[in-house]
């Protein structure tokens, strides 16, 4: 029983991004890149399912430039068995968008036939929150987004999802698509021995053409600007001063 885990290389969450002066985008040259945090949670869940004997192989996949190999090596160090890179051009004008990624993953699903695909619920760079759901539609699979608990038994998955006001439990047959939310698990740390072992695990590189997928973007970015800033505020001396401001100046209480 295979589990496919797509992982994305994104600007590290600690980095304070700057908008380029020509409004063409965000400055990503020389900034620290990392695996998308929710994708780490996805890898961790897949590896745990394998450790519990419910899966036989965890395959990490990333779509993007050749530098995504770093992210895949991290996935392998976290416990994935092999990795696939779908390499796309390192062209400043080319943007790989969720619909294209979903199509690439759909082609890989047809090839690898996993019982589960686990993705992060959202990438912290484009904040799209689309890829998992799009893949599920293309592959005609059930989906459980924002998963906080997964139980597998008898070819079915019982998934607890975070919803407004609480949680809901869904039951779905496999194969299925899950997207990982914060409380699904706490990912393990990468250890040096595992990083060394990861270098020997297989990493295959293929191109979108090999999968017969058109990855041309549908949304064109016209410009990227900084959001409007807030007016500077003031510090107040104590609670009494605060309440005075809120009541008489801001008039919100």
């Amino acid at each position: 029983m295979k589990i496919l885990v797509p992982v994305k290389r994104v600007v590290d969450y600690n980095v304070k991004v700057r908008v380029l002066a020509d409004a063409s985008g965000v400055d990503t040259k020389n900034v620290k890149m990392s695996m998308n945090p929710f994708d780490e949670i996805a890898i961790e869940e897949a590896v745990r399912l394998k450790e519990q004997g419910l899966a036989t192989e965890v395959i990490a996949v990333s779509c993007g430039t050749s530098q995504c190999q770093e992210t895949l090596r991290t996935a392998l160090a976290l416990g994935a068995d092999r990795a696939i890179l779908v390499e796309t051009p390192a062209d400043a004008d080319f943007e790989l968008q969720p619909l294209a990624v979903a199509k690439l993953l759909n082609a890989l699903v047809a090839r690898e036939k996993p019982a589960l695909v686990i993705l992060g619920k959202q990438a912290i760079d484009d904040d799209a929150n689309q890829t998992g759901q799009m893949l599920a539609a293309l592959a005609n699979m059930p989906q459980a987004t924002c998963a906080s608990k997964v139980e597998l038994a008898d070819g079915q998955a019982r998934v607890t999802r975070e919803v407004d006001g609480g949680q809901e439990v869904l039951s779905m047959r496999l194969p299925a698509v899950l997207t990982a939310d914060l409380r699904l698990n706490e990912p393990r740390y990468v250890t040096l021995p595992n990083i060394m072992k990861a270098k020997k695990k297989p990493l295959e590189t293929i191109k979108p053409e090999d999968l017969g997928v058109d990855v041309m973007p549908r949304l064109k970015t016209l410009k990227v600007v900084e959001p409007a800033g807030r007016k500077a505020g003031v510090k107040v001396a104590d609670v009494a001063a605060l309440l005075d401001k809120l009541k008489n100046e801001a008039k919100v209480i």
Partner: protein
Amino acid sequence: MASLVIAEHNHAFILGATLHTVTAAAQCAGDVHILVAGHNAGPAAAAASHIAGVIKVIHADGESLAHGLAENVAQQVLALAGNYSHILFAATPSGKNIAPRVAASLDVAQCSDITKVVSADTFERPIYAGSAIATVQSSDATRVLTVRTTAFGAAASLGGAAAVETVAAVAESGLCSWVTSEIAKSTRPDLTAAKTIVSGGRALGSAEHFDAVLTPLADKLGAAIGASRAAVDAGYAANDLQVGQTGKIVAPELYVACGISGAIQHLAGMKDAKVIVAINKDAEAPIFSVADYGLVEDLFVAVPLWVQTA
């Protein structure tokens, strides 16, 4: 050109998020229709017909739509999609769950969390936790959008007189079934609609403290309660209280951040609040850079004092 809004509802009522989505829809394409897909959802459909600016309500009713399962609702939308240039969902957990299935099935891109409609094919949306605003243009014939409800005003819930058309509910997909829900019944206002929010960070130290310290203040202010990701991560608050880039986006009249350092990811969720108050004993905490009023004090002293002060 017509817009279809997928209503957020609980079968009995239309939820507020729908009203903001209608406003965005009207800016996209002149005629606005609403789809109410539910089970015994006649009351919700009737309520939708009164929303100002809506000219038609399509009411699909059946058991397959009882629990908002994405596989079924998406199919219902797809049955109608051919008539619309724009299909809009509110950027709520439900909308975000369903919209991309519709987009992929139509083989079109989705524009998530739009904050402005520039023209019928051009939209603004935040990226990198709101550190930047991108203007994107869609080349697809159908635009599938999720709408950041705090960025658009609410259409009036009364004044409209739309016709209600009933359509057959799609068949159950058979892919997935609902087992159970555990929804906390709260007397607090809904976080995304609340006028006032009291929010806590990791400094609260425990779930017990989180409740004990913040609840009295929230009660006093009639406020909803929110949390930072760190507080949710540590188990001090439920997941759906999380305000931030990967949680809820809020824009209340008053946001009181208690013991929240103000990481960019948190600011992404609340920096459009009208008035921001920060209470934190660390004078260097980044939250003070967005706070209108900052109080550098231990929240365990300041918050109870606020509650006690008449």
